[in-house]
């Protein structure tokens, strides 16, 4: 298999000019359910892009399409300059699923080792990165405990570590702060900001609207459509409010009106 372009391989496109992620008319139908309904989206290099929307708005489906796990019913996706499906993209992605998705019978370190290895990291480099990220998510002391004994917050931290340990160029984080206490949430977001400064593009879904303010841009998602997209400042200004929740409700109402008039 010739898909061994490693993390950050220069041959991958995605120059500063071309957006890192381009979705064009994405439609995904599960049975009779239209989960994504003609979604257009472009996300640039170095952004922290927040996907905001209620449950069932299509956030997770969009994430899974970007991760190459789901094929859209219609429309096209380009990630890192390649049209999906393309196995070469996978090495540069980090995907944190909604469930903590860990091997409960293994220790934290063994989980990280496994994910490192399938991303092609080995030997001392692997151990160095594992030690580094364990310190980052404050799990160094518990590294050799079996994950089954971990609390919810610890699992969430380890899950994040597993998604980022191979230093992806694009991190897809699906509701990373669900079930996480406020203090830890804040430290997660500090970490995201740091990663972002180091050049990682982040797409993060959330329904904590206070988190949305920390994104460089936001996409408001409802019924598989993008209601609005812009910087938090732009969105607030457009809605004529200083409250993100009020802004979201404003755009949701506007979306319904458009549906009626159409």
């Amino acid at each position, binding site marked *: 298999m010739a898909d061994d372009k490693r993390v950050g391989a220069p041959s991958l496109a995605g120059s500063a000019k071309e957006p890192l992620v381009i979705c064009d008319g994405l439609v995904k139908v599960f049975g009779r359910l239209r989960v994504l309904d003609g979604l257009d989206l472009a996300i640039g290099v170095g952004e922290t892009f927040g996907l905001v929307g209620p449950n069932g708005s299509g956030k997770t489906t969009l994430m899974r399409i970007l*991760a190459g796990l*789901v094929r859209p019913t219609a429309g096209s996706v380009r990630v890192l300059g390649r049209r999906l499906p393309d*196995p070469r993209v996978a090495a540069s992605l980090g995907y944190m699923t*909604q469930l*903590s998705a860990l091997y409960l*019978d293994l220790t934290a370190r063994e989980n990280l*080792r496994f*994910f490192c290895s399938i991303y092609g990291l080995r030997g001392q480099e692997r151990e160095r990165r594992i030690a580094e990220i364990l310190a980052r998510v404050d799990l160094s002391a518990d590294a050799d405990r079996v994950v089954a004994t971990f609390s919810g917050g610890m699992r969430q931290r380890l899950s994040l570590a597993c998604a980022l340990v191979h230093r992806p160029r694009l991190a897809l984080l699906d509701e990373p702060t669900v079930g996480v206490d406020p203090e830890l949430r804040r430290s997660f977001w500090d970490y995201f900001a740091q990663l972002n400064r180091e050049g990682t593009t982040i797409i993060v879904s959330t329904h904590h609207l206070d988190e949305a303010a920390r994104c460089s841009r936001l996409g408001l998602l409802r019924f598989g459509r993008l209601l609005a997209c812009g910087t938090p400042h732009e969105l607030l200004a457009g809605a004529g409010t200083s409250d993100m929740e009020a802004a979201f409700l404003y755009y949701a109402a506007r979306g319904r009106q458009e549906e009626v008039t159409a």
Partner: protein
Amino acid sequence: MNGARVLALTSRIIRQIVRDRRTLALVFLVPLLVMCVLYVVLTGSSGSVPTLALVRPTGVGSDALNVLIDRLLPPASRLKTVTITADEVEDVLNKSEADAALVFPADLAAQLARGEHPRLQLVLEGSDPAVATAMRESVTALVRQLDVALAQAQSRASQGAGQTVPITTQTTSLLTLAEPRYLHGGPDYTSNDALAPVFIGVFSFFFVFLLTSVAFLRERSQGTIERVLASPLSRAELVMGYVCGFTLFALVQAIVVLLFVVFVLRVHYQGNLGLVFLVAILLTVSGVNLGIFLSTFAQNEFQIIQFIPLVFGLQVLLSGIFWPVEQLPAWLQPVAYLLPLTYANEALRAVMLKGSDFGQIAPQLAALLVFMVLMIGLSALTVRRQVA
């Protein structure tokens, strides 16, 4: 296919199983327990009527002897007989047309007339020890009766001639029954000898199927499959990693079963152990892939348990473990030949009891290979289906 990624997955699976001590213990101890119970339970009485092939005396004066032999034979409801020629013996036994052959010297009448002690030879097919033992006993009894009858006839004849000859009754003085020759196996083969090889196959297939289906189900239910599929690990590497991890355990298990069978239960075997492991590997790889395939039809562990009668029960009943496939109703026999264990059993018995070589079990190996490729295809298809 990237070896390092496959190895990562394989070593993860091994680590997970090793960590689950209870499962590990069950995987290795249950087969031993089952075999011990079988060892005790099985007395090896076979229901069918055995067949004895007779190579009759043909020389001058044989007619009277043949009449005598026929008169002394047990009724056909207990022993069927066929008459063959001396050079047909091995052929008839190998084709299982008879279970044993009793060879009389062609010039039996002449030898008796000369006062010699004719040697009779019993040839046993031998791969079913229970049948072999039964045959040995009934033939020995038959020869003894024949001996007594001949002695009485001779003494009557000599009395008629006015000579006094001591009447021989108890001792076998006229006929000698040579030590039986075994085509396969030997005098100390027991029913367990015929069953033990089969269990190596049963256990390697079954436990690996069970472990894989549960492991793969967990991978789905805890969501790790999403992570793995989003990584550079390809579908082929995923299947390969699972196959390697579980095949290793199945082989260790096969070794444990084999050692136990040979050294603790003292079951006899001959033949190439390499071939035994080859069969075990083919079965294991099939079992892993069947496990992956069926696990996608189960939402939880309970549903996996429901697959056991389907996968395991059916095969144990139909694959010739306890009774030969030929004894099944005609319409069921084709079903038996769709099951991998049928071929595995034939191959394992042939290797361990008859010392068959690679060429002799090639058809069975080919059938197992076909089944394995089919299962790999099915599991690859289902892993692909994980991506909607």
